[in-house]
Every structure is written in structure tokens, then in C-alpha cells.
């Protein structure tokens, strides 16, 4: 298992290198001089600009700039934000908790929607229950997260005044206030995610229901509930877990929109703000970190395979 883990980790290194090159070069292809971003409105004299260029190494060839940036990034130094002058790593870790909390709670809500709905739809295939579940799922994936969020704010915060419309309080500071603030964002992100998962749960359950070992289990006279939970669901979970890994990127994309609507200080918002204000170091760090998150999620999924299906732990 540990050698498998090591090999999986090693296979990420080339991808990570390519990602870092892409992130680095993409932003340096951008029109405009980064010095303008650093000095802001009042443009100093040419000697000051030359000094800044030398200090930041903008005059070096791009490969040299890349190697310097990448070697620092490898030891956790992502440079300083052009805007706030704070270390980028500090900004990222400040923003990480909100995004993590939003993502994890949304995945849980998504599962709470998708498992019962998808399982029932598969077991009642072809009935009105199945059709209703399919329509609910199609509706859920069609409604943009930002629209759901705006409607929720209108209904529950402005019209009914049950919940606060936006903002963020750390759970360590005040757990109740934190949860009250997270209800609407988690529904916003979790509903669409759950709808997407429902489609996979249904398809995966249908696939497993038709397999030989299910017929065997039924022939042995096992109760239907044990067949469904113990046999079908267990093997249906493997592709579902894969989907959760693959869709981490989509979840983070949804998090960007959700954080924007609810003014959550998260990673997605950090990345978008940095991109919009051409704050290169923050933008590079945030995007790199999110790509790393997607890779890590897929690694965790690989490891979960071993738990769900012992045959796979030694595979590959």
C-alpha cells in the first residue's frame, strides 16, 4: 500500500510541474507591465522603476524567472501580494478554512440528497418516482449556483428574515453564527452538486443491480434490504467516489460563484480578485493551490478504492 501511495504521488510530480509552467506562463503572456500593478496610480521616475524591475527580477529571461518562482514555491514561499504586500501563503491559509468548510458541507449535503434519491430512482426504475427523481436532478444541474444563491437570499434573508444574507464568522469564534451564515451558501452549492451526483448514483446502482452476484445474493434468499445495502450499494459506491474526486474542480468552480454572492472570504474569491486586479503572485499561488487540491482529492479517491474494494489496493 505504501509503495502504491508513493508511486501515485510520484506520478503527480510531472503534472504539477506542467501546471506550474502553465500558471506561470499564462500570466506572463498577459498584456501590461506588472510594475504598473506594484507602483499603482502615481508612476515614479524611470530609475525607481528600474530598481523595482531589478528587485523583482522582471528583467531576467522568463525561464530564469520561472525557476526562481518554482524553487521558492516548492518550499512554500509563493512570494508577496502586489496589492496587500502580504505573503501569498499567508493569504491562502487565511482563505482556506472558509472554502474547505463550504466544500465539505456541500459534499455532505450533496450526498444526503443524491444517495436516497438515486437509490430509490434505480430501485423503482421506469416508474413515476424514477421520472420525478430524474427531473429533479436535471433541474438541479440546470440552475446556476449564483441564481439559486440570489433567490435564497431574497427569500430567506430579505423577505422572511430567517437567516443573515452574507458574511463569514470563523467556527472557532462563534459556531452558531458560523453555521447560520453557512446555511444558504451550502444549499446554493450543495443542491447542484447533489443533483449531479444523483444522476451518477442512479446509473451506478442500475449497473450493479444487473450483475451476477446480486442475482446470487437474491437466490440465497437474502432480504432485499441487505442485497441493496450490503451488495449493490457497496459496489456502486466505487464509481460514485470516483465522480466525487473528478468533480472536485467543478465544486471549486461553484465555490467561486458562491463565495462571490455570499461575500465569503474563500480561495475562489481570492483567485478571482487577484486575476481581476492583475496581482500576479496571489493569482499564481491561488490557482496553483486549487489545482493541487484537485490532484489531492483524486489521490484520496484512489486510496478510498482500497477501502471499498480490497482487490484494488494492490492494483496498478
Amino acid at each position, binding site marked *: 500500500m505504501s509503495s502504491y501511495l508513493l508511486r501515485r504521488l510520484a506520478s503527480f510530480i510531472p503534472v504539477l510541474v506542467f501546471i506550474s509552467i502553465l500558471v506561470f506562463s499564462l500570466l506572463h503572456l498577459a498584456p501590461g507591465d506588472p510594475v504598473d500593478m506594484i507602483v499603482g496610480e502615481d508612476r515614479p521616475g524611470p530609475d525607481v522603476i528600474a530598481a523595482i524591475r531589478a528587485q523583482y527580477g522582471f528583467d531576467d529571461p522568463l525561464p530564469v524567472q520561472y525557476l526562481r518562482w518554482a524553487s521558492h514555491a516548492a518550499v512554500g514561499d509563493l512570494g508577496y501580494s502586489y496589492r496587500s504586500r502580504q505573503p501569498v501563503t499567508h493569504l491562502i491559509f487565511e482563505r482556506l478554512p472558509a472554502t474547505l468548510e463550504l466544500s465539505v458541507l456541500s459534499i455532505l449535503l450533496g450526498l444526503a440528497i443524491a444517495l436516497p434519491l438515486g437509490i430509490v430512482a434505480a430501485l423503482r426504475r421506469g416508474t413515476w418516482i424514477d421520472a420525478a427523481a430524474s427531473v429533479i436532478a436535471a433541474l438541479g444541474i440546470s440552475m*446556476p449556483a449564483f441564481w439559486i444563491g440570489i433567490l435564497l437570499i431574497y427569500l430567506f434573508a430579505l423577505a422572511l428574515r430567517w437567516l443573515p444574507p452574507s458574511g463569514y464568522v470563523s467556527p472557532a469564534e462563534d459556531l452558531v453564527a458560523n453555521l447560520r451564515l453557512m446555511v444558504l451558501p451550502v444549499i446554493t452549492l450543495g443542491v447542484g452538486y447533489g443533483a449531479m451526483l444523483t444522476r451518477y448514483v442512479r446509473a451506478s446502482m442500475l449497473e450493479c443491480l444487473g450483475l451476477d452476484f446480486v442475482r446470487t445474493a437474491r437466490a440465497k434468499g437474502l432480504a432485499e434490504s441487505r442485497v441493496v445495502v450490503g451488495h449493490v450499494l457497496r459496489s456502486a459506491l466505487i464509481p460514485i467516489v470516483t465522480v466525487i474526486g473528478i468533480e472536485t474542480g467543478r465544486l471549486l468552480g461553484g465555490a467561486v460563484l458562491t463565495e462571490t454572492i455570499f461575500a465569503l472570504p474563500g480561495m*475562489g474569491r481570492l483567485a478571482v480578485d487577484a486575476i481581476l486586479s492583475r496581482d500576479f503572485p496571489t493569482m499564481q499561488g491561488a490557482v496553483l493551490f486549487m489545482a493541487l487540491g484537485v*490532484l489531492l482529492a483524486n489521490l484520496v479517491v484512489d486510496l478510498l478504492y482500497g477501502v471499498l474494494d480490497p482487490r484494488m489496493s494492490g492494483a496498478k
Partner: protein
Amino acid sequence: MRDVLELARLHPFGTVGAVVVLLIALAAVFAPLLALAPPEKQSIAISLQGPSAAHPLGTDDLGRDILSRLLYGARVSLGVGFASTVIATGVGVVAGLVSGFVGGWVEAVIMRATDVLLAFPTLILAVAIVGVLGPNLNNATLAIAIAALPRFARIIRAETVRFKAAEFVEAAVSIGVRDRNIVLRHILPNTAGLIVVQFALSVAAAILNEASLGFLGLGVQPPTPSWGSMLRAGYPFVAQAPWIAVASGLAISITVLASTLLGDAIRDHLDPRLRR
């Protein structure tokens, strides 16, 4: 005609989707005839008015007619959704065919490139590309296409590898058919069904991505209307004038839902494994 009715009977949801997509496309094409007012015509005197006979979906903060803006916005949504998916399909299919057929380092490079693109959250990638190139219609289209491209390349590569080992390809090789003709005449036609399915499903995602970019202010720029940017503009007024957000959000949702239902039906029809 009988075939069409038979298809409609087999896929009722898909038929509804197809009809709705067609209606929205017609509305987009004939927007100048259908719109009650020019979409950019401002009139502060009638700003934030609720639905009425003169303005069936109300007006926005600048007194512009929401229905007219929705009709013109359909051009942007469908146009970007369709154009970006065409680009993604074209480039992705070529990349998939080449990497699957040629193999070796060509395949390794193309597949690592798709790994890299897939590791980025789609929306973040699109935001980064538009952020770098500048927000406008063409760059939004390009960004959405690049984000959608790796899935096409992956799927077509897998099929190409599978067909390369098939007997009919071996037979073609053995009688001396040139590589280019094997790929174009023998492998590509066999992947056509899959390409159509992926295309149909990608259009819905592309429309949603265009709306997301518009909502973040990175899509087509004002005053040209797009559904995402209308929602963005209507958000601050949601308490006084909820119809702006409701109408533009509904337009996005209905279009994406119809495209999804249509895509699902095409998939179910063309993929025999799902026809049980």
C-alpha cells in the same frame, strides 16, 4: 415524419428539450422582430418597473425592457455555447485521434496536457484565460472552449486506441491503406456517435459557463445584454425588483435544462449500453 414521431414517443423529455432549444434559437434569430424595444434603449423615468402590458417582464435599473434584453441575450448565450463547443470538439477530436493513433511521445505529451487542463477547476481556468486576455465575447468563447477541450481529447483517444486494435483496421492496414485514410475513413466514423453525445452534453455546460463568466463581469461587456451580466446587474436590486434576477435566471435555467434533456436523450439513443 413517422421516424420523428417514433423518436418523440421513445424520448418524451428529449423531445421537450429539443422543442424548447429550437424555440429559444428562433427567438434569438428573430430578436429584432420580437423585441418590444431596442435592448439598449434607456429611460430612467421607467426604471425598475414591475411587469406590465408595455413591459411584460418589467424594466431594469436603467429603464431598459427586460424581455427585449433577454431575447438579444439569447444570441450571446446560444452563440457562445455553440461556438465554444464547436471549437472544443474540433481541436479535441483531432488531438484525440492523433494521440490515440500515433502513440509514443506524441500521445504522452497530449495526454499530460489534458491532465494539466483537467486539474484546473473549469471556471477558474476560464476566469484566468479571460483575465489574461481581457474580457470580451471572443475571449470568453475561447476560454470556455479550452476548458471543455480535454474531455473530447480523452474520450476520442480511448476510442481510437480501441479501434486501432480492431480487425477492420488491421484489415485496412494489411491491404496498404494509408494512415491518414485509416483515421479519417475507418476510425473517425466509428467515433461519430460518441462525438455527437459529448457535443450535446457540452453545449449545456458551455451555456452555464458563459453565464457564470457574465455574472463575474468577465463575459460580453455592457451595454450588450447577456443573461449572466443581466443577473449580475439585477442582483443589487433583488429586494426592490426581483423580476430582473428571476427572469434572467429562469432564461439560463430553462435553456440549460432543455439542452441537458436533449443531450441525455441523444446519449440514451446512441449508446446501446444504456438502452436496456
